[in-house]
């Protein structure tokens, strides 16, 4: 049983800090996703859990044992690598069996366990092939099978889907979700793709610059982003962020005025709202600007307009909406859908929460 506990963990090289004072409690059976842009420290965090990277300070506990100085092999975790890390000189069968062999599991069990793992990832027909003779998706499934065959305390997955094409990514994602459901093993999953995070995670840790920005269930993070970074990273398209001033519950800037906000703050702020919470109207509304681009997505139409700093603001409209570039679009941004962030620190300003949930 593996409850994982990171206590004030840091990783530093010379003058560079990859992970800064990270504390995380991961209960048994949880699917935890570390999400963030490249270089945010998410992979380093995972590699420290795996034992591939030294911990500069802090402690890593797993199942009640201090892990800091244990070799990877003594941590009872299994890991799926971005480039799969398959052994090119071994067949698929041997690849999957390798962890069993190396950990001294009785040979009599090997066949049955390998077959079971292979079956779970639908690899049975390819067992005697070499990795070089497999497609990318198949290789990824070999890596998965190799990870699950041993029934470890914890799965670590380092961007396992990023080398696959879009279609395969969706199906493999489903397979991973299904596997976790079946095996119920604690899983830590690293990705920079917020869709993967939203679809797979029990909880998400959004990281930036080695610091955990927000930890929470996917919907919590979606609905109540802790700061402008999280807000801009989660959701597709990302949340619109507009600078302006707030006074007496009214946000205003040259092309948008939102009133009816709580009186929780005043002064310069950043206002956030999602494209889907906006309603495009033919006249009136509190937002109007010339259309910069139009995207027909099939189920809807997205209009983009340019903000004060040349940043794009997305508006989602009905799929029947039609406008030409340069025409003026009018929209209504409801106060209830707005998030307010401190302009300086980017931190969410409390007091706007209750209304935000749509």
């Amino acid at each position, binding site marked *: 049983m593996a409850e994982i506990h990171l206590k004030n963990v840091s990783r530093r*090289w010379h003058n560079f800090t990859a992970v800064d004072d990270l504390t995380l409690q991961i209960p048994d059976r949880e699917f935890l996703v570390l999400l963030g842009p490249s270089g945010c420290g998410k992979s380093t965090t995972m590699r420290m859990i795996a034992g591939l990277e030294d911990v500069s300070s802090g402690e890593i506990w797993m199942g009640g044992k201090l892990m800091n100085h244990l070799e990877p092999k003594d941590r009872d975790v299994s890991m799926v690598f971005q480039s799969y890390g398959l052994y090119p000189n071994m067949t698929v069968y041997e690849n999957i069996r390798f962890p069993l062999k190396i950990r001294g599991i009785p040979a009599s069990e090997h066949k049955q366990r390998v077959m079971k793992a292979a079956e779970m990832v639908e690899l049975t027909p390819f067992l005697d092939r070499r990795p070089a003779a497999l497609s990318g998706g198949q290789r990824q499934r070999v890596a998965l099978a190799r990870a699950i065959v041993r029934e470890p305390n914890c799965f670590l997955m380092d961007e396992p889907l990023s080398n696959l094409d879009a279609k395969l990514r969706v199906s493999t994602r489903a397979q991973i979700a299904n596997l976790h459901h079946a095996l119920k093993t604690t899983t830590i999953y690293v990705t920079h793709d917020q869709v993967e995070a939203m679809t797979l995670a029990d909880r998400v840790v959004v990281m930036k610059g080695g610091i955990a920005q927000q930890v929470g269930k996917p919907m919590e993070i979606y609905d109540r982003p802790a700061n402008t970074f999280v807000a801009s990273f989660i959701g597709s398209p990302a949340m619109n962020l507009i600078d302006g001033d707030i006074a007496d519950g009214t946000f205003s800037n040259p092309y948008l005025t939102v009133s009816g906000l709580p009186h929780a703050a005043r002064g310069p702020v950043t206002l956030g709202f999602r494209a889907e919470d906006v309603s495009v109207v033919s006249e009136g509304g509190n937002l109007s600007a010339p259309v910069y681009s139009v995207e027909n997505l099939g189920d809807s139409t997205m209009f983009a307009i340019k903000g004060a700093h040349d940043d794009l603001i997305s508006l989602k409209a009905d799929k029947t909406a039609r406008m030409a570039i340069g025409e003026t679009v009018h929209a209504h941004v409801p106060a209830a859908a707005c998030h307010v962030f401190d302009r300086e620190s980017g931190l969410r300003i409390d007091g706007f929460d209750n209304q935000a949930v749509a």
Partner: protein
Amino acid sequence: MPHRTFLFFILPSAVAMFLFIALPIGSVILQSLHVEHGQVLVEVESCTPFGGCKTQTRVDAEATAALRAEAPLGRWNGLGTYMNRAHLATAELGEIFRSDTTLREKFAQVYQLRFYRALFFTLIYTFVVTPAGIIVGFWIALAVNRLPQMLKGPVIFVSLLPMIITPLIGSLVLYWMLNSRGILGKALQWLSGNPDLSIAASGPLMWVSLILYGIWIAAPFSFVVFYAGLQTVPDDTLESAMIDGANRWERVRYVVIPHLMPLATFVSLVQVMDNFRVLEPIVGFNAEAHAMSLSSIIYTDLQAENGQLFGSAAATSMLTIGFVVILLSPVLVRTWREFGKRAH
């Protein structure tokens, strides 16, 4: 990788290098900074089969040994050995440059000094053979790459021969052929119409022969590396260059050569070091009269026939290493940058 694991993996190799390279180099440096004790000379009567008995000068072994026991390294000489006539010859250089002579005469006088004569040849050899070997190797690689598949095997095989031959023996084989009675020597005489033509008699011809030998032995290494590299030239880039209108030469110039640049760095690194240590052809070609290299003067100093001069050989060795480091410094800096990138 944790320090402990690193140590475990590197230890056998590091211990071997420490014991058999670093320690000797350390002692070599120490040696080069000392000269031997003043030998205690005595006059004794000695008798030999010829000329009967005479008074001759001898070393008083016991007295000298007593001196040596006191300070086993000898007398501290600092950089004296480095500066003396057999090495950097600072005093002689100063005199030459102060003297009222033409530049040409000055050069001739500097060239009389053993170290500079060796350095001059070594540098010329290194700077002709290294690029020439690389260029010849590159052209062979391009040409072999165009051959039909079935011919490639045997051609590569023959091409590697000069590289795998023992250098001393390779130089002997070529010298046998090149000397005035050998098949190539005769061919040269016939070609030049001069029946007395002999490479052993002419300094410039000897230099040319040594350099050609150097290219002969260096080209296969560049060839095999470049040939391997050619197999990895990306088709896409070549094809896009074709569509962009590049002719064959332009494709080589703008696609193939840039692709092979890292290999060329590796090859030149290895070859500069090897060429800078040139010794075997000078011995094999009996070329001492016309050419000396830094290695060959070290070799001469260490020959017991010549009363081994360990300190002098040590000083020349350190100067050699110094020059190699200077020559390689651009590559070292580049490696350092790459290493920095890889560090995290």
